[in-house]
């Protein structure tokens, strides 16, 4: 699965951003962060510290309180361009009453059909089948997602993102609920895609040792629970 041409600059560039929700206290401050094509960056930190909000901010779903977010060359986009960003939310965001194929085709269409009014694309279907196969779900292709186990649903969400062939994959604890064997398969497929296509992977991971093992760089968001000497919630890079 080849990624669309992403240019040569960083895929994500954050500059002096403060994230959080309007009318609430700011959650995290990040002075500078750049993620280049082919890089895997893990975000770790205690729960409730703002990891998911950081992903949502980069995806354009939440506006930063201040600072600039540049994703795939676009500064503070209201929403990403079609197919450029693949997002696996913590709660997966699957259509529970629709089949596995329908869910994965959403990603495939976003990545391989330029506009909604274009006719169905055979390329999109090929990418969807390839992604479903890589997640070992070919025997579940017509099943409604609500009938699958938690781990299988997590694989469907990952397949949806892989079928999209995005420039940036953002995954929020996408390895939880998976047994060791399945986790290696899913992680292997995603890392293979990132290394071969030049896409970037930004992953939120609760387990710091797992985050260190999969990532090139580790960003720890700390509100004082990890390091009691810090006074405000900041993201700091930790050597892996």
């Amino acid at each position, binding site marked *: 699965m080849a990624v669309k041409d992403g240019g040569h600059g960083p895929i994500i560039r954050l500059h002096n951003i403060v994230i959080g929700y309007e009318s609430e206290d700011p959650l995290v401050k990040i002075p500078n962060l750049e993620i280049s094509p082919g890089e895997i960056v893990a975000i770790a930190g205690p729960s409730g510290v703002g990891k998911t909000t950081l992903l*949502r901010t980069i*995806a*354009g*779903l939440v506006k930063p309180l201040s600072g600039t977010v540049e994703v795939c060359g676009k500064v503070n986009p209201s*929403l*990403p*361009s*079609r*197919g*450029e*960003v*693949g*997002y*696996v*939310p913590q*709660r*997966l*965001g*699957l*259509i*529970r*009453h*629709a089949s596995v194929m*329908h869910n994965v085709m*959403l*990603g495939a*269409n*976003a*990545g391989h059909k330029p*506009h*909604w009014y274009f006719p169905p694309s055979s390329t999109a279907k090929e990418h969807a089948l390839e992604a479903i196969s890589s997640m070992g779900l070919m025997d579940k292709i017509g099943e*409604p997602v*609500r*009938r699958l186990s938690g781990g299988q649903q997590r694989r469907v*969400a990952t397949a*949806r993102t892989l079928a*999209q062939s995005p420039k940036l994959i*953002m995954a929020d604890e996408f390895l939880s609920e998976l047994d060791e064997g399945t986790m290696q398969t899913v992680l292997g497929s995603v890392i293979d895609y990132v290394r071969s296509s030049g896409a970037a992977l930004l992953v939120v991971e609760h387990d710091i040792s797992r985050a260190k093992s999969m990532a090139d760089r580790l960003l720890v968001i700390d509100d004082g629970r990890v390091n009691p000497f810090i006074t405000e919630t900041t993201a700091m890079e930790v050597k892996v």
Partner: protein
Amino acid sequence: MRTAINGTRMGIVALMTVLMSLLIMDGMVDDWGRLSGGLDNLVVFFHQSLWPPDWSVIEPQAYPVCTAHPALDFTCSTAWIGMIETLKIAFVSTVFGMIISLPFSLLAARNLNPRWISYPSRFILSASRSLPSIIWAIFFVILVGFGPLSGALAMTVYTVGYLGKLQYESIEGMSKTPLYASDAMGLSKFETAVNVVIPECANDLISHAIFMFEYNFRHGTIIGIVGAGGIGYYINLYLKFLQYDKVIAYLIIIFFVVIILDMISIYARSFFNEEGDSSSPSWFGVFVPEILTSGLRRLRGQ
């Protein structure tokens, strides 16, 4: 800030509400003594005018001549013709109502659109359900004349408003994460509506449509009174001639058809809920209350 529900406070509020209702009722009634003769009047009316029902309403009409098989000659009766016409009006208005209301409800949902789009759509939906279907029926009888066409149009307009409200409330109640995922993917609003929102809410939307058909049938029996077709036309006819024994026969028929439709509706809707995944519904389960079936299972030791 909202506080948790307090049992004593809720009790006082409930008591005050009941007392207020009694006071308002007392203000509307000038003579409570009128109630004393009500039961006697009912007994006299029932024995002299209503009972026994005149079942000639299920016999074939004298004209036009019935050409059906003798075993099926009831299909030439006014009760059958009126009932089938009411069912047709209910079906057509539910289908057309759903086709029209779905785009409006997608626009009206506040989790999909900004207020400047959702509020005008809600206004249109509110307007179409602000008048009861019988008033819409009078309106369409004036516009297009007597008959089932005006009935179908009236019920369709009412369905758009009523079903549209049920639909946008379902859409607003859906999980936000599929919308987050589709926004991050860069899918258009149209794709999100068609490929994410409708499939995710499909069970609710279908269940509401079945409920609406049942509702339209019950209301379709009334609109004939103003000349908008269906069994209500015949009820109104016999009311004018004071033939209450025929009217009660129609009402009994309507009662049984409503019960049958209600059961079909329960059966059909059971396919479109989460429980339908684990066990297929059975007709026995629809007709026999759950408390009896669970009692039987306990007796069998299951």
